[in-house]
């Protein structure tokens, strides 16, 4: 990635002859960034992601009430405008079944908890998964791929066959088994042990820790394959040979010469993978193996709402809209990143 700006002394002479002003080089990254900014869809995506991050960070000040404040008297209460957009929901005053209550902006669930507050707090779970999921997958995949690609030979063969077998494993099933293993097993052990500490930590995180571990165990294979492929192609380059000839230690070669070359593709694939992680968490909460109640998660809210979709469609559709917007945003952003870093692909995929 040698650029003009890296070698100012060599350019100085030319610059002085041809142009009195200084030449400002453009690095590949800043070039890509400019292309990204021109992509309207990607900018909208990035904006939605940033808004979501802000909502997640400042949930306590944004949400009207707390997410677990139940009021059974207001079970399934709905504000008037919601009954207008869903014609099936007739208010009690007009001979229907819906209890009207203006104090809930989007309505309440069957325990009388405010839907809006739960959606706002639910952003925390989705954003946490959207950030930590790719991080774990990148770190594990990076280490495995690097070792396999750099060591080569038998190590490479062994690791890649293991990746192949993990691919053949039904991911959802594996994650269900792992979650059942953690959820059922870790609660029953004596205090003082590592597993007990883990389950305490998980409880403190509202059940997120085990979701992270589950994702980490199942999502690293793609990254590992990608990194290995990149390492294999990069390590044959002359500059790596030159570095080795100069006596650079392996760690330096990896960190200074190989790492910068493979981070781009890795970041792009991981961004494109984020919607997958978000829907993993939503699925797990949907089947009841996700975050612990009463911590709200959009997946869990959709699951609860789907049970009453015929009478209270707002309870499933509003969290669904939130989840959809976030996934849509990450898809746009990922597409934009890929197009920006690899202009030859523009409009191909």
């Amino acid at each position: 990635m040698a650029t003009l700006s890296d070698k100012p002394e060599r350019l100085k002479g030319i610059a002085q002859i041809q142009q009195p002003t200084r030449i400002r080089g453009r690095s590949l990254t800043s070039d890509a960034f400019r292309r990204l900014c021109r992509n309207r869809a990607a900018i909208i995506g990035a904006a939605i992601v940033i808004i979501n991050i802000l909502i997640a960070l400042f949930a306590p000040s944004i949400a009207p009430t707390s997410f677990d404040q139940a009021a059974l008297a207001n079970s399934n209460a709905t504000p008037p405008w919601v009954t207008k957009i869903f014609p099936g929901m007739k208010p009690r005053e007009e001979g229907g079944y819906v209890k009207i209550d203006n104090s809930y902006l989007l309505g309440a669930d069957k325990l009388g908890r405010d839907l809006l507050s739960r959606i706002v707090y639910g952003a925390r779970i989705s954003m946490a998964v959207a950030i930590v999921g790719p991080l774990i997958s990148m770190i594990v995949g990076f280490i495995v791929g690097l070792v396999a690609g750099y060591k080569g030979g038998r190590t490479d063969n062994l690791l890649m066959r293991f990746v192949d077998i993990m691919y053949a494993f039904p991911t959802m099933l594996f994650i269900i088994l792992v979650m059942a293993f953690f959820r059922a097993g870790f609660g029953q052990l004596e205090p003082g042990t590592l597993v007990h500490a883990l389950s305490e930590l998980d409880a403190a995180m509202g059940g997120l820790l085990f979701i992270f571990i589950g994702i980490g165990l199942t999502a690293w294979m793609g990254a590992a394959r990608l990194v290995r492929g990149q390492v294999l192609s990069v390590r044959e380059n002359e500059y790596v040979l030159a570095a080795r000839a100069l006596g650079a230690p392996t760690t330096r070669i990896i960190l200074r010469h190989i790492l910068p070359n493979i981070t781009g593709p890795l970041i792009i694939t991981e961004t494109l993978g984020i919607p997958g992680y978000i829907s993993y968490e939503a699925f797990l909460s949907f089947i009841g193996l996700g975050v612990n109640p009463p911590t709200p998660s959009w997946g869990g809210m959709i699951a609860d709402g789907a049970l009453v979709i015929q009478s209270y469609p707002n309870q499933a559709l509003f969290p669904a809209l939130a989840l959809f917007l976030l996934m849509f945003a990450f898809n746009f952003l990922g597409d934009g990143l890929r197009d920006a870093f690899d202009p030859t692909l523009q409009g191909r995929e």
Partner: protein
Amino acid sequence: MAKFIVRRILWMFLVLVVVSVITFALMHAVPGGPFTLEKSLPAATLKQLNAKYNLDAPLHLQYLKYVSDIAIPVVTTGEQSKYLDHEYLFNISLPFGDKATLRWMNFGPSYKTPSRTVNDIFRDNLPVSMQLGAVGLLVTVTVGIPLGIISALRRNTLVDYAAMGAAVLGASVPVIILAPVLQYLLGVELKWLPVSGWGELKQVILPAFALGIADSALVARLTRASLLQVLNQDYIRTARAKGLRERRVVVVHALKNSLIPIVTVLGPMVAYLLTGTFVVETIFGIPGMGRFFVTSVSGRDYQVIMGTVLLFAIFLVVANTIVDIIYLWLDPRIRHE
């Protein structure tokens, strides 16, 4: 070619063995067993139950017995045993001996519902899931591939942008959203289709679309990308230079080669669509395989866990092997490697 197929089949078996070992180890690592109930059973009863189902044997022996019951075919004579532990999936009458029958694949009884075997579950619920999955797959292919072709041919036009916009939209809607929304719009509000249930043709449409749409978005994007790549190749220019009609160039020359990445993703899709999906089947109240993947784990119903995992893994490795064989047909270069 023969060497290739033999190698693939050996690989298939290796994968199945590893998958079954991991599942077996993992499910026994989860504390509690199938007979751990809210109200605990008397010790003597528990002991007898464990003895009856061979659960008191060392783990490796349990595993070997389980695998040999499935893999090794047996020939029986006389009346069929009435015990559920001797119930086989395939029973083929042999032309000799006293009612001699070749029996194969005994997946064992379910611990939670002792009157049913895992084979019963396969017989009753798998066909439902397979029918639903097949229609879902049809949606995926018939929506995804034409959409991808059209946007590749009309690249960078309004049609292309609309189609690809729709594809990103489709890819952003997880099935746990799509299913309730379809149910609400078409079932509750417009009353065009039944909200849930199974048995009538009308009841297949909504769940099949819920299953197929997200995948069809993926297929559309892939088709477009791969067709565009192929259309840039020299042999396509040659075909056009020969004066072939555009339709012939696309259908005969370009399409076949652009199918390779699509076939690759369709392999795993076939496996998980046909073996049942938990979310769609739960939301639409369909008696398929999907729920057993989840309920068996929470109930520690060991035989059902192993049965469903193996069923999925078998579908997956077979689908992937078929994909590899289709590669050979699609791309002659692979044949010569």
